[in-house]
């Protein structure tokens, strides 16, 4: 027990800064996330087609839900278009409303 205490005190006293740095990156908060780039903005997509299932499948979960853009990094502008495309594909039974578990 005594050894453990001494070890922890050693680490806190000497290397607090070193431990924190990789998390937040410099002096920003440790909770700050890296901003993801929007794949549609990068590709300069003019529109998102509901028939393009390969693209759409990347933005739904296995259960068939549309993924939130805080996870995928899609911009607000394209998320609205993507949402519409997925819903159109669902209506034509190209994508499931409720996927298998």
């Amino acid at each position, binding site marked *: 027990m005594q050894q453990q205490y001494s070890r922890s005190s050693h680490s806190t006293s000497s290397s607090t800064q070193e431990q924190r740095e990789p998390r937040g990156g410099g002096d920003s908060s440790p909770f700050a996330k890296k901003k*993801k*780039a929007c*794949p*549609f903005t990068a*590709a300069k*997509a003019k529109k998102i*087609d509901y*028939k*393009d299932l*390969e*693209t759409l499948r*990347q*933005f739904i979960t296995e259960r068939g839900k549309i993924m939130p853009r805080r996870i*995928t990094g899609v911009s607000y502008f394209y998320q609205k278009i993507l949402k519409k495309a997925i819903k*159109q594909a*669902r*209506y*034509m*039974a*190209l*994508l*499931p*409303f*409720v996927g298998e578990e």
Partner: protein
Amino acid sequence: MSQKREGLYEGMYILSATLSNESRKKALDKITDGIAEKGGEVKKIHDQGRRKLCYEIKGKKEGHYYLLYFTAPTRSIIELWKEYHLHEDLLRFVTMKTEEVLESLEFNPIKVQG
């Protein structure tokens, strides 16, 4: 005068896969004839073949997909829909305005990185 307005449309149709080839052709002819009757013109027909439906429609698990590009007077679309609703072998249909006729249905999928 507004009756002469025309638009380019894209229609996707799911026909029942339980139909024989002949009766499926007949059903498709019924759709194309309906467009022609209203003064439209079918530009392109994509036969996408049999596909498994992601959920059952009218008790069917498979469907035969067709994608048509056609021009039609804007007023006639609503009449076409009324016909389609009476069509028994047509499981589902959708008509949308488009700007261009796609010659091939292959897309460059946008990949998500990471």
